[in-house]
Structure formats: structure tokens, C-alpha cells
């Protein structure tokens, strides 16, 4: 416990990571640094300690901990008194760490042993998790340990112990939080709901410090988008892979909490096992140690956290590795002291050892990053905790052990806290040495050992240590009970203090490049938008010009600028400044617009369905686009350039779609087609009735129920819309602030449908339900935009034509569930013949790369003309997405989203040679071949490095195959239920 005044003299004092004072004095009064420097007067009555040979550093700060705040159990949640608070149990914004704290002395001690004196701790449970407090890691009563309350408000995408079904997906978590924050602001403005403790807490937190948790780079970017709407830049706890999206993360301006934890290597000796470790994992293993340095170099503020480490002690090894990979030593320490303090506004009291600061310090034998450094003591607000007593003599070394009748060799290794010792006869080889049980108590030592050939012949020695550990002597007892005097004298030059080394971390292997995205086939230098002329192609224009042979197409600045025979560069670019032009001989090849997949679930993170509720119009696929999905690249290789990422079909009213262009390598944000019209998924039939899974207790369970859900939803949306119309129509001065309507994201999306500002893509199969939804739409005054799947559309073609709805169908799927037993492959042909705008979609990550083949089936089944069949995967779906003014045909002015095919695109022999999006070539069969070689050589290089690391003693883990989850319509939850049969379309 702290003595009122303590003076540490003669120390090597580091008041911060960059200031070193030799033979300095540190004066601590009442747990606070009173003075630090060379000429400090020592007051009378002070306890003085000579710190000769020792270093003093500021103690470390753990900024992201749940120390003393375990997550709730289900039972606790059930017993919880809800009170007047926002309904969803994943929102626990009102939780305050200081009020919930349950001291955890053991964990605090473990942190202290590694040099931590302060932890910012919060209950890691729920989406809104409440506030953290800064907790001193000493043993005082909790109220004395709390250094600061409500340090930050914490958020995650993980609903934790919440027993509520909603949210079951990440997009649901985002929608829930977004609505809650809007509610909080609204309630603060209107004072209508100000009794709600959760909303009140949220409203207050929005103006303070927010910390959000992201599992990886993409989640960090999602947080930035979500909170930008509320004008907040949070501190983000990342996954250590920020280097893979450095530019995008830098642009968010979010300070980062980086994990002080490096990934383990894999067991890759077996070449088949090695194959199962993905390229992304291999690359991350190699690049993760460089992350902190790159983040630092980019000018992003950061601190380290040990959260997630099971082996706390190993943090120093990982940190040394990061330093070896470029991180500045001082920055490494600052990230655990001053910078951590500054990010959380604690730098007025913590992080340095300047006068006035809390006496949080560590006493070490050398620099903390030295491999042989010993953390002797941690002081927490003046309370001293000794881990390895620096006053204890250093015992390591080799001794001549005189046992009276013989001289033996005694070897002692290890740090003072954990000594290992062996003896052997002086004449024997090292390999014959036997283990010694060595115990030490202050200046007293006890040794016992038995001879190799006789385990019962134990020799026991007891004695004292003198001369700084160099001389031991005392009495011993031989086997048989005979007493004798013994002594041990250390050989010169054998103690660790004599060691003349600066322990080196293995020099870093030179890191390979970062691929964008960081998976196989990611690029290392961004493909450029080039002015290109395709010469002599067969061009499928999708216009009234039809299919043109021997035709040239010129693209420039992302657009098609000219199309015709024998295009002349001089005519195209008459000015003096002519762009660099790439000419591609397309003789014998076919050039088309890119394929548009109206129904896709690729590139979606953590849940394609918010299946916890039957109306989920508030969720947005656009919030969870996964730009790293290899299926984006595979789709490009199949000629796909634009896709509608749809919510699944678990609910009558699903979520909002994301329309993306397959700009491979770009972050999610840059893939979204910003100006696109809004779309939303609806669904009918077996999936929304949950006919093929689940308990069957959710409403609706029948097609009757589905209809009524729609009416109920749209009537509510109508009321909502008129309430807002009234409010918006009223003059601001005449408005009563307390009557401001509440913004409801769910109804808002539905009102957009009623106003024809959002279009429905409705999963549908049978006649009755198709008819029903058109009736609902007619009576509510809007038009259904697209029926997707629509396998019985052929029975309703005339009515669909009359309603003005498009049909986006499968070429030939059927018989996977009862409602598709009457599905026929002639569906597309019949709908097309009836004049319905008809497309063919995939709903499948594999089929989407063969949509040209699927379109060709419309020729086989129903005799559709090739040109019209081709439009079914290009122009017609572009119309459905209301993007046909930009994409879907090859004509001047339209986006240069083009595909160069080796043959007629509808033939089975057709292969994509190049795919362009916005005039940028994102897939090229030639570079694909080079990529394969790069993947192979990078794999080989990193696998060798891993084997070397393992040989050096690095921990490893087994290879595991990672099968990517492919989303289908009715997958529920974040990882979907893993039914193998696809009864889900």
C-alpha cells in the first residue's frame, strides 16, 4: 500500500516514451507524481529507494477491456427488470460500468504483471453496450479504483445475451441501432419519450466519445457509414487487418484500437493440408505484423488493446515483431500509454510521469521491448506491486558446486521468478546433467537432486546467497543422512548481466504486396480506365441496330463514345490532345453489354435475411456489402457487370436491395450505384410461410395471412406518410415541436413504395399469390416492379402484362419444393411472347457466372430469337433495375460495361475474354492466368516462411478448409441454417 511520500532515486527515468533522464529522482506523494527530474529535493520523512540499474516507465493503459464486467447470462436477462426503456434487449445504452463493476482481482493482477495500471472497461454485451469507466488496477475498494466514469459509450454489431430474436443479421443490427439513434434524437427534441432511459442515454452519448467494435476492415467502414449520418466519428476497435483497406479507413478519420495480437501460423508441412489454408489467411499471417506500422505511417491515430489475447504475456513478443516490421519503438510504447490516454481524454492524469500525473509506473530491468527485459514492479496510483523483486540477487549462471567429496557443475537459467537448474559431475558431458529442484526464499536457497542411476539417492542442500548471487554456501545432507558443508561459486562471465547481447527478433521477411481485395485474384495495381477501341467485333447492340458484324466500338472515360465500321481515331478525337488509345483486335469475337443479374446474394456479409420479423423493410443490404467476396471476380469472369443484391425471401416484406457494379478491388462504398432508384425485396409462398423449416408458429402461415400482412403494412404506411405530409406541409413557425412525427425506418421504406420511389422485386411462384400481390398493389395505387422467380408466370402472363410488371425467372429450375412442381422451362418464352419484360436471373453464385448459358435455354425452350434471349440477361434486367438509361446495351452515351466473348455468347463454347466496368477492365483471361501464377508463387513463399516460423518455435494451428457460405433466399441468421438441399429459392 502506498506510503504518503516515496522517493525513487538513481533511476533511469522515462517520463514518457521519448524522454530519458539518467540517475533521476521521482517523487511520489499520495499516489501522484510530485516531481520528476535530476535535482529533486528529498523531503524529510520520505521513504527513499535506490533504483540503481533500473528503469522507470509510465505504466500501460488497456483501452478496451471487460474487466469486472462479465456479459449477462440468459437467466439474468430473463430476470431483468425492463422498466421504462426501449424495447430491444440488445440496446443497453443505460448500462454504466462503474455501477455494474464486480472486482476481478485475478485478471487485474495478470494485467499488472505485464505493466498495466489502468483499464478502460465496459460490459461487452449487446449492440448498445453503455459506458465504460477507467479502472485502476490496484486492490482498493472499487469506488477508489474508478479513475473516471462514463469514459466512452460502446457499440458493437453483436447482440450478445439479448434473448430477443431481432436482429438476427448484421444489417438488422445496423437498422436497429440506426432507428434507436434516430429515436434518441427525436425524443430529445420532442421530449415525448424522455422517460426512456435507453433513449436518454443514447441521446447523451451521441454528443460524447463513442467506441465501436468491428471484426474486420469492412465492419470498420460500415461503422463509419452508419455514424456519419449522425455526425459522429467514433473510435473503432479493429481486427488488425486495416492495412488491407488503409486508404478507405484513413478517410473515415476514425482513431483505431488495434489488437495487440498476431495471427498464428498454420501447420503446412503437408502440401495437401497447406492447400486448405486460404491465400487470404496466408497473406494476413505475413502482413499483420506490418499493420501497426502502416496505420501509423498513414497518420491514423491508434492505441493497442490486448483484448482477445488468451496469453497476455505473449504481447511483448508480438509487439517486438511489429517493431521488427517497422513500427517505431517509441510509437509502440506511446500506443499503450500516452496515445491511449489521449484518445480517451485521460491524458490529464495518465500516460506519462510528469508532475501531477497519477503514479502509474513500471520498474524494469531494461527497455520494455528488450527480449530479456524483466518487469519487476508495477505501481498503480502509488501502490507498489512487485512481480520480480529487483533487490533479489541474480542467480543465473554456471557454478562450481563443491560437495566436499567432489566438484560438480551447477547451471541455473531463467528469470528470477522462474529458475531452472541442473547439475552434473564436472567430468561428465552436459547431456548427463540431472535436474535440480531449486527453491529460493529471499537470501535462502534450497537445492535437491538425485543421481541418474539411483532415483532414491537424493542429495539435499540448504544455504544462503552472498556477493550479489556469486557465492552460495551452507549445509547439506547426503543419501543416508550424513551432513556436510557445501558451497557454489559462479564462474566469471556466466551471469546474464554479463551477457553482451541485444536480443534480436528474427529480421522480418520482406512482405509481399497487399492485394485488393486481400484474397486470391485481388490486384496489386489498380486497373485503369483506358480509352479503348475494339476492332472488327460482332457487336450485340441490344438496340434496333441488332447484331452488327465487323464493327468497331470506342470507349472513353468510362462511356461508349462511338460504334461503327472503320472508326477513325482522328474523327473520334479531332483535337490536338488525343488520349492514349488501346486497340483490341476483336476479329472473330463477340462484344456485348455486361450481364445484369437481377437476383443475386453474393457479396453479402453476415446474413441475407432478417428473418426475425415478417416485415423488415428497415434493413438494407447496402449496409453489409462484402467487397472481398471471390464470387465478385468469378461473376466478372462470367461476364456479369451489375447485380442486384437482394434480401432473402424469409419475410413477406424483406429488406432494401443494393445495386452494385462489380468494381473488383474497390471498397463496398465504391461498388454501390449511388444514383440508382431504390428497390426492395418482397416474398410470397412457402418461404414466408416457413413451410419447410421452423416450428410453423410465425404469422403468416398461409397465403391468406400474407395478403393481410401486406394490407396491414401498407395501411400503416399510408397513415405514416400522411402524418409526415401534414408536418412537412405546415409552416415551421406554426409547428408544435412536441408533435414532430417520429421517423420510422420500416414505414418510411413502405411509404416510398406507395409514392413509387421504391420498387418491389417480389419472390413469387404460384398463380394465386402473383394475382394477389397485383391486387394489393392496384388497390394501394402502385405497380409491382418485378416478380422474381415467378415460375408460374406463364399462367398469368396477360395479367402481368396489363399490370406492367417485369418477370425475372429461372431458365429451368423446378421440383425443389411443392410450389414449383408446375414450373416449366418454357416460362421465359411464354412471358416474353405475352409482351412482359422478361429476364433470367441466377439466385446462385455458380449459375450467375453462366447466365449466358441460361439465356440460351430460352432458345431451346420456346424458340426465343437469340437476340431476344440475350436481352433477357442484359437489357431486360437493366430495365427492371431502372438502369437501362445507363446500362444494358452497347450504344454511345451508355456506361462502358462491356464483355468480349471468344464466341457467340449464347453458345456453350463461349468464354469471357475481358470484362469492363465503367471502361475499366476488371477481368482479363490473360491476366487471370498470370494471377494464378502469382497465387501459386505467393503461396509457396509464405508457406515456406510459415514452416521457418514453426521451426523457430512459433505456435501453429491446423489447416482447415473454409467453405464460404453461399447465401440463398431463405437462409436465416448470420451464418444461415446449413441445410444442404436447396429447397430455398
Amino acid at each position: 500500500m502506498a506510503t504518503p511520500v516515496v522517493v525513487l532515486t538513481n533511476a533511469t527515468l522515462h517520463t514518457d516514451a521519448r524522454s530519458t533522464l539518467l540517475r533521476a529522482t521521482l517523487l511520489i506523494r499520495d499516489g501522484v507524481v510530485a516531481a520528476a527530474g535530476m535535482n529533486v529535493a528529498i523531503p524529510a520523512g520520505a521513504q527513499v529507494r535506490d533504483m540503481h540499474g533500473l528503469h522507470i516507465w509510465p505504466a500501460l493503459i488497456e483501452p478496451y477491456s471487460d474487466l469486472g464486467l462479465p456479459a449477462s447470462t440468459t437467466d439474468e436477462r430473463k430476470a431483468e427488470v425492463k422498466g421504462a426503456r426501449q424495447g430491444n434487449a440488445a440496446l443497453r445504452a443505460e448500462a454504466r460500468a462503474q455501477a455494474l463493476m464486480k472486482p476481478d482481482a485475478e485478471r487485474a493482477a495478470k494485467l499488472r504483471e505485464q505493466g498495466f495500471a489502468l483499464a478502460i472497461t465496459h460490459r461487452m454485451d449487446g449492440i448498445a453496450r453503455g459506458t465504460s469507466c477507467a479502472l485502476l488496477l490496484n486492490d482498493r475498494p472499487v469506488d477508489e479504483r474508478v479513475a473516471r466514469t462514463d469514459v466512452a459509450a460502446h457499440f458493437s454489431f453483436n447482440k450478445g445475451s439479448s434473448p430477443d430474436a431481432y436482429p438476427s443479421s448484421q444489417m438488422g443490427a445496423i437498422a436497429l441501432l440506426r432507428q434507436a439513434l434516430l429515436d434518441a434524437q427525436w425524443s430529445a427534441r420532442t421530449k415525448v419519450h424522455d422517460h426512456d432511459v435507453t433513449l436518454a442515454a443514447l441521446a447523451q452519448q451521441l454528443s460524447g466519445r463513442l467506441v465501436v467494435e468491428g471484426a474486420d476492415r469492412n465492419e470498420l467502414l460500415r461503422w463509419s457509414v452508419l455514424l456519419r449520418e449522425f455526425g459522429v466519428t467514433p473510435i473503432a476497435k479493429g481486427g488488425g487487418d486495416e492495412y488491407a483497406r488503409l486508404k478507405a479507413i484513413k478517410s473515415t478519420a476514425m482513431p483505431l484500437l488495434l489488437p495487440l495480437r498476431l495471427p498464428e501460423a498454420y501447420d503446412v508441412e503437408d502440401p495437401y493440408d497447406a492447400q486448405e489454408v486460404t491465400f487470404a489467411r496466408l497473406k494476413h499471417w505475413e502482413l499483420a505484423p506490418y499493420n501497426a506500422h502502416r496505420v501509423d505511417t498513414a497518420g491514423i491515430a491508434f492505441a493497442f488493446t490486448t483484448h482477445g489475447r488468451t496469453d497476455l504475456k505473449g504481447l511483448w513478443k508480438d509487439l517486438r515483431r511489429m517493431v521488427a516490421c517497422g513500427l517505431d519503438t517509441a510509437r509502440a510504447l506511446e500506443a499503450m500509454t500516452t496515445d491511449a490516454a489521449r484518445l480517451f481524454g485521460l491524458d490529464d492524469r495518465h500516460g506519462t510521469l510528469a508532475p501531477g500525473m497519477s503514479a502509474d509506473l513500471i520498474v524494469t530491468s531494461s527497455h520494455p521491448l528488450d527480449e530479456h527485459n524483466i518487469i519487476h514492479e508495477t505501481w498503480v496510483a502509488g501502490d507498489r506491486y512487485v512481480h520480480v523483486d529487483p533487490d533479489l540477487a541474480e542467480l543465473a549462471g554456471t557454478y562450481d558446486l563443491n560437495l566436499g567429496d567432489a566438484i560438480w557443475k551447477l547451471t541455473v537459467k531463467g528469470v528470477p521468478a522462474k529458475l531452472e537448474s541442473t547439475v552434473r559431475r564436472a567430468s561428465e558431458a552436459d547431456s548427463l546433467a540431472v535436474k535440480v529442484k531449486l527453491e529460493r526464499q529471499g537470501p535462502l536457497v534450497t537445492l535437491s537432486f538425485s543421481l541418474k542411476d539411483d532415483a532414491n539417492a537424493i542429495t539435499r542442500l540448504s544455504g544462503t546467497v552472498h556477493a550479489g548471487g556469486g557465492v552460495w554456501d551452507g549445509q547439506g545432507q547426503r543419501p543416508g543422512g550424513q551432513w556436510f558443508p557445501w558451497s557454489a561459486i559462479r564462474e566469471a562471465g556466466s551471469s546474464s548481466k554479463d551477457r553482451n547481447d541485444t536480443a534480436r527478433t528474427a529480421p522480418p521477411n520482406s512482405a509481399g504486396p497487399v492485394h485488393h481485395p486481400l484474397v486470391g485474384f485481388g490486384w496489386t495495381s489498380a486497373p485503369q480506365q483506358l480509352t479503348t477501341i475494339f476492332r472488327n467485333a460482332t457487336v450485340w447492340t441490344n438496340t434496333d441496330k441488332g447484331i452488327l458484324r465487323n464493327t468497331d466500338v470506342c470507349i472513353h472515360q468510362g462511356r461508349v463514345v462511338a460504334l461503327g465500321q472503320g472508326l477513325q481515331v482522328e474523327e473520334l478525337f479531332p483535337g490536338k490532345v488525343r488520349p492514349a488509345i488501346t486497340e483490341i483486335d476483336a476479329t472473330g469475337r463477340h462484344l456485348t453489354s455486361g450481364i445484369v443479374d437481377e437476383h443475386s446474394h453474393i457479396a453479402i456479409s453476415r446474413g441475407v435475411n432478417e428473418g426475425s420479423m415478417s416485415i423488415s423493410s428497415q434493413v438494407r443490404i447496402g449496409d453489409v456489402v462484402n467487397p472481398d467476396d471471390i464470387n465478385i471476380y468469378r461473376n466478372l469472369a462470367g461476364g456479369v457487370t451489375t447485380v442486384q443484391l437482394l434480401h432473402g425471401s424469409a419475410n413477406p416484406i424483406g429488406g432494401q436491395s443494393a445495386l452494385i457494379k462489380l468494381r473488383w478491388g474497390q471498397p463496398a462504398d465504391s461498388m454501390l450505384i449511388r444514383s440508382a432508384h431504390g428497390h426492395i425485396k418482397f416474398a410470397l409462398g412457402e418461404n414466408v410461410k416457413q413451410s419447410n423449416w421452423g416450428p410453423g408458429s410465425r404469422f403468416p402461415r398461409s397465403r391468406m395471412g400474407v395478403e393481410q400482412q401486406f394490407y396491414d403494412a401498407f395501411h400503416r404506411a399510408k397513415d405514416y406518410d400522411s402524418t409526415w405530409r401534414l408536418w412537412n406541409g405546415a409552416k415551421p413557425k406554426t409547428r408544435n415541436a412536441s408533435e414532430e412525427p417520429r421517423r420510422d425506418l420500416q414505414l418510411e421504406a413502405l411509404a416510398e413504395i406507395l409514392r413509387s420511389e421504391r420498387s418491389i422485386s417480389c419472390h413469387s411462384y404460384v398463380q394465386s399469390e402473383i394475382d394477389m400481390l397485383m391486387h394489393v398493389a392496384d388497390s394501394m395505387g402502385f405497380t409491382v416492379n418485378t416478380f422474381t422467380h415467378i415460375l408460374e408466370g406463364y399462367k398469368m402472363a396477360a395479367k402481368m402484362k396489363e399490370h406492367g410488371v417485369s418477370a425475372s425467372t429461372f431458365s429451368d429450375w423446378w421440383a425443389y419444393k411443392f410450389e414449383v412442381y408446375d414450373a416449366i422451362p418454357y416460362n421465359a418464352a411464354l412471358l416474353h411472347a405475352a409482351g412482359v419484360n422478361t429476364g433470367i436471373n441466377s439466385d446462385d453464385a455458380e449459375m450467375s457466372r453462366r447466365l449466358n448459358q441460361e439465356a440460351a435455354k430460352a432458345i431451346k425452350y420456346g424458340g426465343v430469337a437469340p437476340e431476344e434471349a440475350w436481352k433477357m440477361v442484359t437489357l431486360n434486367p437493366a430495365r427492371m433495375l431502372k438502369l437501362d438509361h445507363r446500362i444494358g446495351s452497347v450504344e454511345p452515351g451508355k456506361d462502358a460495361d462491356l464483355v468480349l466473348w471468344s464466341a457467340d455468347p449464347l453458345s456453350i463454347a463461349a468464354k469471357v475474354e475481358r470484362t469492363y466496368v465503367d471502361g475499366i477492365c476488371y477481368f482479363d483471361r490473360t491476366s487471370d492466368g498470370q494471377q494464378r501464377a502469382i497465387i501459386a508463387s505467393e503461396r509457396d513463399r509464405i508457406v515456406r516462411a510459415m514452416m521457418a516460423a514453426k521451426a523457430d518455435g512459433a505456435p501453429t494451428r491446423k489447416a482447415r478448409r473454409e467453405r464460404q457460405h453461399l447465401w440463398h433466399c431463405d437462409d436465416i441468421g448470420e451464418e444461415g441454417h446449413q441445410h444442404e438441399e436447396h429447397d430455398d429459392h
Partner: protein
Amino acid sequence: MITRPTYSQLLSHRVMRFVFAIGVIACANIAHAQHPTPAPPQHRSILITGGTVHVGDGRTIDEGAVGFRAGRIDYVGYAYGVKAVYDTTIDVRGQQVYPGLIAADAALGLKEIEAVRASVDDVDVGELEPELRTMVAYKADSRIIPTVRTNGVLMAQVAPRGLLISGTSSIMQLDAWDWEQAVFKADDAVHMTWPAAYQRGGWWAEPGETDKEKKDARNTRIDQLRAFFQHAKAYAQLGTPLQRDLRMEAMRGLFNGDKALFVNADAAKEISEAVLFAKEMGVARTVIVGGYDAWRVADLLRDNRVDVVLRRLHSLPLRPEDDIDLPYRLPALLKERGIRFCLGYSGDMEAMGVRNLPFLAGTAAAYGLSAEDALRSITLDAAAILGIDGITGSLAVGKQATLIVSKGDVLDMRSNGLTHAFIAGRRIVLDDHHQQQYRLYKGRMEGGQ
């Protein structure tokens, strides 16, 4: 156990019926929603002439002819070389003539609607059940089967699904009143799934079981299989066992070559383990099903004369950075390495999807295989792997007259369009529920209703 005629008895029985039955060539049935009438035995001799004949063994004959009577082919050659007289001559100039296509490892006829459990009979409870026989659950009048035939698939090895040892398949021809009539070769193979060598990794937030536990579970399964096979091998040596064991009876044929062992395995290690296991157990004939990595262990397969039923080519690469077109190139990779293979279609929507079998072969042709080799992988080589190439699988004199005529390349969806199909000389009605619905609603549309 049900006693059933042997393969040769069945054939002679058929031949007898061919002689006495009066054949009526069914014309396209225009009634709606009706199962096409199974064809009676061939009564009149038929000559298909003028088309390009794809023999199935790699050869083609331009302006060729195929003649057959009483269900057997008696002429294959150039049209001008026909000497014999035929009752019926069908001129197919400009069209393509192929052997009937054969689907190996298909669950056809065993499940009508995948999500309707009541209609699914391809899997049972239990893990070691070679005694389960697919043919008795085969729904001869499945609505699916005619839609498969109209794309050219006329025969299928109907295989069970399930864990470890899932049952015994039979080879069926796809035009019959009932299963007994559909059986082409009864109980041809026992089907097994080799325990997976690599587990699906957990996911960052929800790590699964530890590796150790899974590895133990896998070893337990392999031990289970070993014990089962050892028991079966010993049992097979007994002529008349004291106590009859249905499961062991079903395994008997594996050791004397009456039955083949079809083992599902994709990863190189799994394939190697499975092949060596079967060898150690004394299995006479082993076929790998799946075979994603088969090309990597080609030497082992070749040395042990193991064939491969390749997994559905229209699938995604198993590993994220495998070559994007690797599944499409598997046939060419096996061909280069001298491994015999045919194409399968197991997986989701496998029963209805069998009609896309020709397009898998078409894709194989686009990715390195010659067109005739691609055809061979769904005709002659499929027959050879199923052990029926002596009597079917190619257009050869003496073989059954099981063939199709398409207006264009049958491997390309634009031109796949059957004009004629025959199974053992029986003229198949090329109609199905889909065409019936098409006609019905086209009529409605044209009538302006």
C-alpha cells in the same frame, strides 16, 4: 429378400416379349398432364439414315446410318453402305445421331419434390446400410423422368444418398411402367462416402468444435468402416452362413466383382485413403465419385484401375483461390492423365437437373476436351464405368439400340432438341409435363383467353 431375375434372365425375358408383342409406335400424346405412355418392344425394324452419327467411342460418321431390329443394332456405317431392308426408314439428314446419354450416380426417381419429405426416398436413417436398394423405391412414372429423357438422357445409375455406406444402386432405363421393368442392371454397386479430411472451419464469432475432437470423430468413422468391411469379407467367404445377415449379404458382391464400390471423395487425401482402403479390404472394383482432386492423385488411380464419376462440373471451385474454371477443366485434366471418367450431377436439385447432363459435357468440351471425348464421358465411358458397355453405351452392331437423334449439337443448349429417341429399339414418346403445360398455355395465349 426379394428374389429377382438375373441380368441375363431379364434380357432373355425381354427378347421373348419382343418377339410376341405387337409394337405400336406411340405418337406424341396431346392429352394434358399425362405421363407419356411407355413404349412397347420394337416390332418393326428401323433405319435411321442421313444424319451425322456420333458413335460414342470418339468416331463420327457423316451421312451415316444406324439400323436396328428386335432392339439390337445391326448396322452402323455410312448411309450408302446399308444393304439390309428395314420396315421403317427415318431420314434425319442434317441431324445428329448419338447413343442414349447415361447419367451415373443420379438420384432420379427417388425424390419427386426435394422439400416435400413425403416424396423423398433417397436416404434412410443409419450409417451403414448397403442392403438398401434404390430400385424398389424408383418411381417409374415420376413427372421428372420424361423431362430428362427429352434432353437425351435415357439411362441412369440410380444411387442412394446418405452417410458412410448409403445403399446399393441399380441401373435403370428411363422408360417403363414400373420399376421392375425399368431395371437394366440390378444392384450394380454399393455407395459409400469417405469421411471428410478437412472440417469446415468455424467462423470468427462462433468457433466450432476443436480440431482434435473432429479428427477423433473421423478416425472413429474410418475404424467403423474398416470393421464393417472386415466382417463383410469374412462373411463373404461363407457359402451358407449359419445366421443370415442382410447387410453382409449386400456386401458380398464387392469381393467377387459382382458389385462395384462407388466412393464419394473430393480431396486428394480422401481419395487416396479411400482407394487404399478399398484395396486393403479386397474390393474388386472401386470408382471414385466426386473426384475434385482426382487429377492430383492420377498415378494412384491409374495404378489401381480406379475410374471417376466427376462431380457436377457446373459448380464453384472448392477452394477460394482455385482456378476459377477448375471445375470446368476437370475432365480435360483427367483425360490428360489417362484416367477414365464420366459425369455426375449430384448435389442440389439433382433429380430435375439431370436433364442438364449434356450441357456439362458441352462445358467440358469448351474447356479442353474434344467434343467426341465430351460425348464419350456421358455415353461409352459412363457405360464402361457402370459395367454395361458390353451391351450399351455406343452405337455398335450387337449392342442395344439405345440412341437419340437431335436436330443439332446435343451438348449445346441452343441446339439440343430431340426428334427421336429409342431404348433397346423401343421408340420413346418425347413428351413431358413441361411441353404439355407449354402447349396448354400457349394455346390459351393464342386464343386470347
